[in-house]
């Protein structure tokens, strides 16, 4: 790779040394952030087939509130909110590449959010993401779509609300993604589809890493995240959200 670049340099008067150093740094960063290469097979398939295994959320105690079954039902199939998430993820090639990338930072590398990531199919990764958003919603709102932060907030007109504690005012969240531009108002944030789609846009931005708006490391956690509990100063392993995510059976080796 370096020989090729050197050759191009000799034959091109427009390549400056600064650009080459930037290129080398980007290649090095990409290599160090890459996960393990995927292995063949489907270790979590049922009866040797490739059908998706049904993995229900554990309900009660320090696990998920019963309301979270709108993400994944008690029989392990997707609830209405889970279906919205899977539909979003599969809508474009760009989204599939971003959310299903075999080398997402932090999945198999520290903090090992999903050690089995490299072995999973896209459908299984879709299950992972539904489980992940259920985990975030559990911690942010106990999966109560009408949850509101009634405590001391900087702007009383713009209280965090809903499944993922988003801004009430459109103006305050419109920049976070195209799906965050729905109208202002508590009742609009309480529409689960609005909150879910906006949160997926936010997560997409997080996964972009340094090139995204949040300028993070591309990991779910710990990272420079909209959700406070996923930030490094809160916990290196994602706190309660990370604890719930790691319960996803599909990620276990």
């Amino acid at each position, binding site marked *: 790779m370096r020989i090729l670049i050197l050759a191009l340099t000799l034959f091109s008067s427009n390549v400056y040394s600064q650009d080459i150093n930037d290129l080398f740094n980007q290649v090095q960063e990409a290599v160090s952030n890459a996960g393990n290469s995927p292995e063949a097979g489907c270790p979590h398939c049922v009866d040797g087939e490739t059908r998706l295994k049904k993995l229900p959320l554990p309900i009660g105690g320090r696990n998920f509130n019963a309301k979270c079954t709108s993400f994944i039902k008690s029989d392990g199939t997707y609830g209405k909110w889970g279906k919205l998430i899977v539909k979003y993820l599969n809508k474009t090639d760009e989204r599939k590449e971003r959310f299903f990338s075999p080398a997402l930072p932090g999945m198999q590398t520290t903090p090992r959010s999903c050690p089995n990531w490299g072995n999973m199919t896209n459908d299984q990764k879709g299950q992972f993401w539904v489980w992940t958003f259920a985990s975030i919603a559990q911690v942010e709102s106990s999966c109560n779509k009408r949850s*509101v932060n009634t405590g*001391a*907030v*900087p*702007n*009383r*007109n*713009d209280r965090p609300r809903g499944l993922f504690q988003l*801004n*009430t*005012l*459109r*103006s*305050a969240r*419109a*920049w976070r993604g195209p799906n965050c*531009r729905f*109208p*202002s*108002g*508590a*009742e*609009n944030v309480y529409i689960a589809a609005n909150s879910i789609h906006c949160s997926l846009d936010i997560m997409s931005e997080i996964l972009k890493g340094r090139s995204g*708006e*949040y*300028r*993070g490391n591309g990991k779910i956690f710990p990272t*420079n*995240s*909209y959700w*406070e509990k996923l*930030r*490094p*100063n809160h916990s290196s392993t994602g706190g309660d959200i990370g604890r719930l995510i790691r319960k996803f059976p599909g990620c276990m080796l």
Partner: protein
Amino acid sequence: MNIISKTVLILLFLPSLVFSGISSKQLNQLSRLKGSYKVTKGSHKNCSDGYLNIVGKEDDKGIRIGHSIFLGPFKDSLEKPTNKNCRVSTKFKMSEKSITVKTVVDKCAIKRNLEEGKTTQHLIIKNNKLEYKVDETGYSCFYSKVEKVKE
């Protein structure tokens, strides 16, 4: 139209000219603020180190500091009330050393959500230091520009 009518018309339109939005020159001035900021003093736990950036598309463009603070949009705006949401009007004003965004939420169809009220946000710029404050809650954060922060 006589001189009195013209004067009245000008006076009526003048506030909207002052509050009509941000100029290219002002946008360039704000762009020079981009970078990492560290909290030096704050009245609330939401005051946290963060990156300042100009964000959003044309009508939604504003300034964000970290995750919790957003001032915008960079123009007066109005969301009309519906059976689901309130009327939301914002007024934007910028001088050489400060930005002020006034937000009024009223005419709410559903009163129980406690959305109505007024918020006045200020961002005061002094060299590489910033002060963000909200009049109605007394919330304030002081920032100093640094090389890099962990948000």
